[in-house]
């Protein structure tokens, strides 16, 4: 390890640290800092390239990069204020989203937009402008954010919301951490039902899934799981989960005994191949592909990834690639038909396929808009180039919008083609990052 210390600021310590993205597609060693006091966030030289890191559970390398000092924000995990009358919660940026949920449920409130990984930090949720269990109804994290305080060496610490420093606020939501170090955020909550009545609706293929999703726009929870290894008109056979509030259960604030850790122990070899994936999909279909209704506590419905530790570990050292495209309704049916053809021809190792319904307008670089979002997780990424290229081409032809925070195969050229007004949005982001001191592998790869 390479240690540097600045005598000017008491407690400043930097060390070379190895980071790997959650999808394991990018690793590098870079200098890192673990500030635990506010003065240490401000202690780096003003022109030193940096990026804040929450729990590091973004699929892509958004919180680190070569020659970019990582500021790990885990120590800034405190609850600062709670207005139980109006449902407002102020927390530091390093607070994990599962802890937000546990705290708010205890007081009869909850945050409607929560990402799948319980360890995701509030700062990370803002920077990625994550979506939750039904983006068609609840939109993205931005919709539930009242205010942020954000530090940038060029402007110090400022408050930003929809009235004050609006441009900074808008650019920071889905700004991939490039507008500064988010210090704290005030979140808007809604009263919590005690539980969720979850209906499972089997679908024959992706086409039927799109129809079922559109029919249930306004429910609390809406997403689909699909088998990506079947063909013959059945591509995407699966189940749509529809959750509605259920007020008979007592409110339970704990999600599970253990949250999925941010750092997983990766198995030394890849276990996912055509045979094992087929077996896993068959097993899941047997469990899920019949109509059913169950009731679960709200806390238990939020983090489906808590059960997924072995699933992610089984991708082995080579990791996985997640691609997520938002396809407009008008082109979705031809898109999925061509995707089925592509899949039967190129036989990609699709480990997981899921769908969500999106409603609204995309105003920034984040993943938002109108249509059906389709996510695919692929094993053995190095063997999937042909499929991934063909899928990208297919999505572009069908007016698709990629999710920048999930897909490590994206390039600056693809993003420029697929995000409307990309140049304007990028300029807006750069204006909020004087000197471009905030940077990451993601920002460099996509020329943000």
């Amino acid at each position, binding site marked *: *390890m*390479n*240690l*540097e*210390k600045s*005598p000017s600021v*008491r*407690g400043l*310590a*930097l*060390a*070379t640290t190895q980071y790997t993205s959650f999808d394991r597609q990018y690793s590098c060693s870079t200098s890192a800092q*673990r*500030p*635990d*006091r*506010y*003065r*240490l966030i401000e202690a780096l030289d003003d022109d030193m390239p940096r990026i804040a890191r929450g729990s590091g559970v973004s699929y892509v390398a958004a919180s680190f990069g070569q020659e970019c000092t990582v500021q790990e924000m885990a*120590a*800034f995990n*405190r*609850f*600062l*204020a*709670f207005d139980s009358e109006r449902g407002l919660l102020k927390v*530091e940026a390093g607070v994990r989203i599962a802890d937000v949920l546990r*705290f708010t449920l205890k007081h009869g409130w909850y945050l409607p937009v929560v990402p799948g990984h319980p360890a995701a930090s509030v700062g990370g949720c803002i920077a990625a402008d994550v979506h939750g269990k039904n983006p068609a109804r609840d939109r993205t994290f931005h919709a539930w954010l009242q205010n942020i305080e954000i530090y940038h060496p060029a402007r110090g610490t400022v408050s930003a919301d929809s009235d004050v420093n609006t441009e900074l606020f808008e650019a920071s939501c889905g700004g991939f951490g490039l507008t500064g170090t988010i210090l704290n955020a005030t979140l808007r909550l809604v009263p919590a039902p005690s539980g969720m009545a979850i209906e499972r609706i089997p679908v024959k293929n992706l086409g039927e899934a799109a129809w079922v999703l559109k029919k249930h726009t306004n429910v609390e929870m809406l997403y689909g799981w699909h088998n990506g290894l079947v063909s013959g008109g059945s591509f995407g056979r699966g189940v749509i989960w529809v959750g509605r509030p259920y007020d008979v259960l007592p409110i339970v604030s704990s999600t599970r005994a253990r949250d999925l850790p941010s750092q997983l122990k990766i198995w030394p070899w890849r276990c996912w191949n055509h045979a094992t994936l087929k077996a896993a999909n068959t097993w899941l279909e047997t469990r899920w592909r019949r109509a059913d209704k169950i009731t679960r506590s709200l806390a238990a419905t939020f983090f489906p990834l808590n059960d997924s530790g072995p699933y992610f570990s089984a991708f082995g050292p080579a990791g996985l690639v997640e691609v997520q495209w938002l396809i407009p309704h008008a082109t979705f049916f031809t898109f999925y038909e061509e995707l089925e053809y592509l899949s039967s021809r190129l036989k990609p190792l699709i480990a997981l396929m899921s769908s969500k319904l999106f409603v609204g307008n995309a105003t920034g670089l984040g993943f938002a808009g109108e249509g059906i979002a389709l996510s695919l997780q692929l094993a053995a990424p190095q063997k999937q180039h042909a499929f991934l290229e063909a899928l990208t081409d297919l999505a572009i032809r069908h007016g698709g919008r990629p999710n920048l925070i999930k897909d490590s195969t994206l390039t600056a050229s693809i993003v420029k083609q697929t995000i409307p007004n990309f140049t304007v949005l990028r300029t807006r982001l750069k204006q909020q990052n004087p000197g471009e001191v905030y940077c990451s592998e993601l920002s460099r790869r996509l020329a943000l």
Partner: protein
Amino acid sequence: MTALIVGASSGLGRVLVQTLAEKGYSLLLIASESRDLDAIAADLRLRFNSAVTYLALDFSVESDPGRKIQIVLQDLPPLRILLLPLGYSCFDDDFSSNTKQIDLLLKINLSAPLVIIQSLLPQLLANQGIVVGFGSIAAVRGRGRNVVYAAAKRGLQSYFESLHHRYEESELKSHFYQLGFMQSNLTFGLSLPPLPVTSPEKVAREVIRRLGCKSGTFYLPTWWGLIALVIKILPLKLFRKLKS
């Protein structure tokens, strides 16, 4: 009863604060900056419904910290526990430190704890209190690194031995912990020997668990006592070869 924690915003201090809050103590927190203390106090009030008061004191410039603490304590329940998990080390503490750096190292690691303990002794004695200090494995035997830091921590250990010698268990308990390698901002990035590094959470749990125990000097984790013994009896020629 009030527990006073000096060095409450960072590392072991912050974890001790949370452990005590979970146990329902009334807390007085001291650290150098109010914005850190403000956040910690808000969090403890929200999550544990704790009675928390704080005072920002920068020991590098503070001339009489004891007096300021006394003023705040007047409005709080009687002081029973004094924890002093404060410390400061710097990379170039290797005979190249200037007067200012030496002064800072001595103030934070030695003078401030001594001044605070002396100032609060009457209350602690009146309440059959407990005072807990923290040393470092780096101070077991002087080396060419952490020169002033180790000297200050050894001085603090001597002071705790004096407390132990002077006061009966029934009057005042004094615990002094020699800490082995622990994850903290002080050790982040340091090239440490290949020995287990403990977490502040484990250390804090143990310190709080032992609050009712007899006075003395202890190693945490306890197996560091053996390492310390080896370091002490190692011939100088061999000891010099241990770079880290």
